[in-house]
């Protein structure tokens, strides 16, 4: 019994002193689109500063915002800007969100590579997701029913699609909602009749990114603003981080040549490339 009491006392002391002993940490939560950038930055930062633990979770822009509002994270990755409501809730909780635009991203419309359709207009994409165009036949393709893949409504990618393509009209029933950019790609690459959308960094040989209004989605066309569906990628912090802190060094990483190179190799557009 005595030793049990000692153990409890020891644990209490541990719990009390632990925050003081624990190493520095940066907790990042949010968008699955910004995820690859945050992960690569985290690895790079930890290799330079071995005493800092940078953790990244990818749970969607909406969850990232909620996390920041509740002060449960240091950085919220978001692929859209904060909504009025989120801003108000944050301010009410004493959190002042500051936006850092870390990169630019296009929103390529993806189809299976076997699909003969190469090009669509924004209008056509909207009509597909409105359910007005139901078959690839109507677009010059084979006679196959179009399978719509969309991101879940918690995602910033969805919001971008909703404003830039759908113009706030509702996506038709029957669309399949999936939880991440990677999942959209996987669904499209395994379904010949599918159409979907994901971040620029998620396009590879297994899917085909369509030309939209005649413009191919590449870092160049996104940077120049020619590609019609593009957006900035954000990292939000509570207030501007204290100068000299690890958080400040981390959030400024995207401005450094190394940071820009990382963003470029992952497939997004560094903010200096206009």
């Amino acid at each position, binding site marked *: 019994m005595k030793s049990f009491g000692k153990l409890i006392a020891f644990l209490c002391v541990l719990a009390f002193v632990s925050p003081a002993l624990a190493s520095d940490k940066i907790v990042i939560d949010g968008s699955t689109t910004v995820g*690859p950038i945050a992960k*690569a930055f*985290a*690895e790079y930062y930890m290799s330079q500063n071995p005493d800092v633990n940078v953790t990244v*979770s990818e749970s969607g822009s909406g969850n990232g915002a909620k996390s920041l509002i509740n002060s449960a994270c240091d950085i919220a990755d978001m692929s859209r800007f904060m909504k009025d409501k989120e801003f108000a809730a944050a301010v009410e909780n004493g959190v002042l969100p500051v936006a850092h635009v870390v990169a630019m991203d296009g929103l390529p419309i993806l189809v299976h590579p076997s699909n003969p359709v190469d090009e669509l207009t924004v209008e056509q994409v909207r009509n597909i997701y409105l359910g007005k165009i139901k078959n690839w036949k109507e677009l010059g393709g*084979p006679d196959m029913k179009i399978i719509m893949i969309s991101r879940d409504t918690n995602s910033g990618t969805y919001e971008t699609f909703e404003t830039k393509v759908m113009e706030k009209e509702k996506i038709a029933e029957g669309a399949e909602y999936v939880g991440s950019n990677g999942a959209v790609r*996987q669904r499209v690459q395994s379904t010949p009749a599918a159409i979907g959308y994901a971040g620029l960094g998620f396009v590879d040989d297994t899917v085909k990114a369509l030309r939209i209004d005649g413009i191919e989605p590449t870092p160049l066309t996104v940077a120049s603003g020619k590609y019609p569906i593009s957006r900035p990628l954000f990292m939000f912090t509570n207030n501007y981080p204290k100068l000299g802190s690890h958080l400040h060094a981390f959030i400024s990483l995207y401005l450094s040549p190394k940071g820009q190179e990382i963003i470029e190799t992952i497939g997004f557009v560094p903010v200096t490339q206009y």
Partner: protein
Amino acid sequence: MRLSTRKLLDRSFTGLGFISIVIMTAALLFLLTPIFIRGSRAFLFRATVEHRLLMLEKFKRGNPEKIQIEVEQTQKMRRPVYDMMSQYEKEISQLSRLEKMEKKNQLRELKKYIENLLGPAPGETRPVLWRDQYGQTRWERALAHLQKVLYREKWDYSDPTKMGQKILIPRTEDFKGTSLENLFPYIENNLKKMLSPRLTFYWRFLTDKSYDAHFFGGIWPEMLGTLYLTLGAMIFAIPMGVIAAIYLTEYAKQGTVISVLRTCISTLAGVPSIVFGLFGLAFFINTIKISESKSVLAGSMTLALLILPTVIRASEEAIRAVPVTYKEAALSLGASKWHTVLTVILPAALPGILTGIVISMGRAAGETAPIIFTAAVSVGKPLKLLETFTQPTPALPWNIYNLATEHEAVDEIRHVQFGMVLTLVLMVLVLNMAAIILRARISKKLKG
């Protein structure tokens, strides 16, 4: 009932039992075989010289002289590849501007694929990300990338009523008559010498942390995180569960209130795990702010809630199975109720209680949903014990899901995913074995 009917019924029951066991074994084999085979490839694989170079440069492992010699040998074999390409570059510089553009684009694509296969060309600046600093470290991935170097994928859309057909065009045809014509047979025939694959047992997969978003390194942070979460859940759930069970069986007045409470506990066992996860986020993190962010502490408390019903129910059954005579004997000797419970009833019920704990431990280790919002992250360092109070951790079940769906390069790192699955299955197995052995020992002690 007639004897023959009874016999027939008896036999058919035996037959049914036999069939169900066969089906179960088949299902288990069907499930476990691929896990073991594909999972073992994370540990045992044909590693190329790039793997050894990475180990030397990043981890200071291996014999520097030997690896240096090997690198030089493979570089010598690669030399003609780069020579041929620079030769070709000279060739096309003579062409007209328009032609040059087209050829240059072709060459750029080829260069990209060769870089993926062999790593950056000598003399080029070193990329930041590890995945670009080295060529293929695994032979089977190298072969997959070789295909991309040798063949250009094209889709034939000539029949508008059908989906396109994939055709592979050998790149030799694109470069016919140029100095690059010989490049492709050269790479195909000499790839082994360029990469010198060798069967390697990478046991450090378990003890290395992951690098460059799981492209390289191992799964130590994930393993440690799972271990912390499981043990943490146990630390919270076992005392609470056992004490609750003792109260419910020994102290509480059996009546409507208690039976309602029992029904509630049983219902709690059926609540979907994601609900626990959201509750953990709302209560532990957002309301009482047990830690600033997600943390192992919050995660293990959520897991503890999840397994609490199982622990309580199993302990209750075990305590009730202790013969009443034990208790009566102790009480008749003048022992207090508390003393009786602690020294007579609990030890006798321990094997049964442990069974409940074993079952719930396996569940806690494998649950994904409760830790998504409370503890798990996709990238993070292995935590020290003290840091578990404040910091989140990667954990096997969540990272398996993350690598399968969200990761930006799923196909490149399948082996890591399978390695994680195998490790998780083995970890649960080991935890269970340990508990089973412990239980056997206690039972033996009680009998002896």
